[in-house]
């Protein structure tokens, strides 16, 4: 029923002229090429921009500082990192009360800067206490630091596997020391 009559002619034997049969095979290779190209494109673009999350746990604010003092911390365990404008990092070891502009030193976000610094500090603290994970990093930021800086430093904490770190506010002594450094 639903067929086309392809016999051509139909009873007219005197006509020997037959239409040339065209091949129905179409070369599909370019089409496959195109399809796979599109697949590759979509796969690459969908996995590119996936946001990820970095965990950050902040301590509970202590209402009464005399009540809960926590563990005693030795000054030699502490490394204070101050993030400043223009991707400058200031750092010093020990307690803030003894800080002078002379003991405040400068470093960068390069792997041989802040990362090496933390690793060195860890090695020193480990040798002193004969116990791992005793290093404490205090991260402070001036008002001119950008958000990227703090994410970078938190990343360094993860890379160097520093277990104890805290984000704190600048103390008066530190603010003065940083200001003196810029002059």
């Amino acid at each position, binding site marked *: 029923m639903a067929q086309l009559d392809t016999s051509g002619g139909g009873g007219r034997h005197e006509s020997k002229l037959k239409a040339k049969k065209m091949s129905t095979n179409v070369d*599909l290779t370019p089409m496959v090429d195109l399809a796979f190209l599109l697949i590759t494109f979509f796969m690459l673009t969908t996995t590119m921009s996936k*946001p*990820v*999350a970095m965990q950050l*746990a902040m301590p509970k604010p202590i209402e009464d500082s005399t009540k809960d003092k926590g563990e005693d911390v030795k000054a030699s365990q502490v490394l204070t990192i101050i993030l400043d404008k223009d991707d400058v990092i200031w750092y010093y070891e020990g307690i803030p009360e003894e800080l002078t502009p002379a003991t405040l030193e400068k470093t960068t976000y390069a792997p041989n800067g802040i990362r090496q610094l933390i690793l060195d500090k860890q090695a020193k603290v480990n040798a002193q206490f004969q116990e791992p994970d005793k290093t404490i990093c205090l991260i402070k930021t001036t008002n001119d630091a950008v958000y*990227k800086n703090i994410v970078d430093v938190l990343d360094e904490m*993860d890379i160097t596997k520093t277990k104890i770190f805290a984000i704190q506010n600048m103390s008066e002594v530190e603010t003065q020391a940083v200001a003196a450094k810029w002059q």
Partner: protein
Amino acid sequence: MPKVKIPRKSIIVDMTAMTDVAFLLLTFFILTAKFRPSETVLVDTPSSRATEQVAEDIIMITVDQDGGSFLTLYTTRRVATLNSLIERYGEKYPSLRTLDQKQINNFGNIETFGYNINQLPALLKLSKDELKEKESEKMPGIPMDSVDAQIGDWVNAARATGLDAGLEIPIAIKGDKSSNVTAVKDIIETLRKREIYRFNLITSLEGKID
């Protein structure tokens, strides 16, 4: 000896099946791909080594370059959050109480919210098209200073909708690379006062491996 003729095989391979598979895969990927919701606040996140995926049902606070903060809630939580906010601020801003249910439901269409709550009634009274138009304008941000820490109330209200069902909704902060760190710290400080200590900082995957 008769010559053994090896029948010549055609070198044409039928590509139809391969085309079928390729297009099937293509269709599958296109259909399963999700469009990224259009972002009303443009933020260029810093990159980090973190690899944890972000859940869908989160409370996200976006901090843009100028330090304004914006709230993005999961679709199903928006209306419930707004209802409890109206209860809280109804006395201070009586116009909030004049909103009818339809207008409140309108809030469910707002992807990212960044206004003072006293501007909300005027915003929700707009029609859908007007709202769309409004979205392209720059939002001023939710107040978050210590006098009027609305962002904290928003987060608390949104959190409560999850806690009622016994679910702790993660709180994410999405900051711009070059936004001032103080703005982000202020938000963390505000939320710490409300006994929220865990945060997710949204970053993009680090491109280069060093």
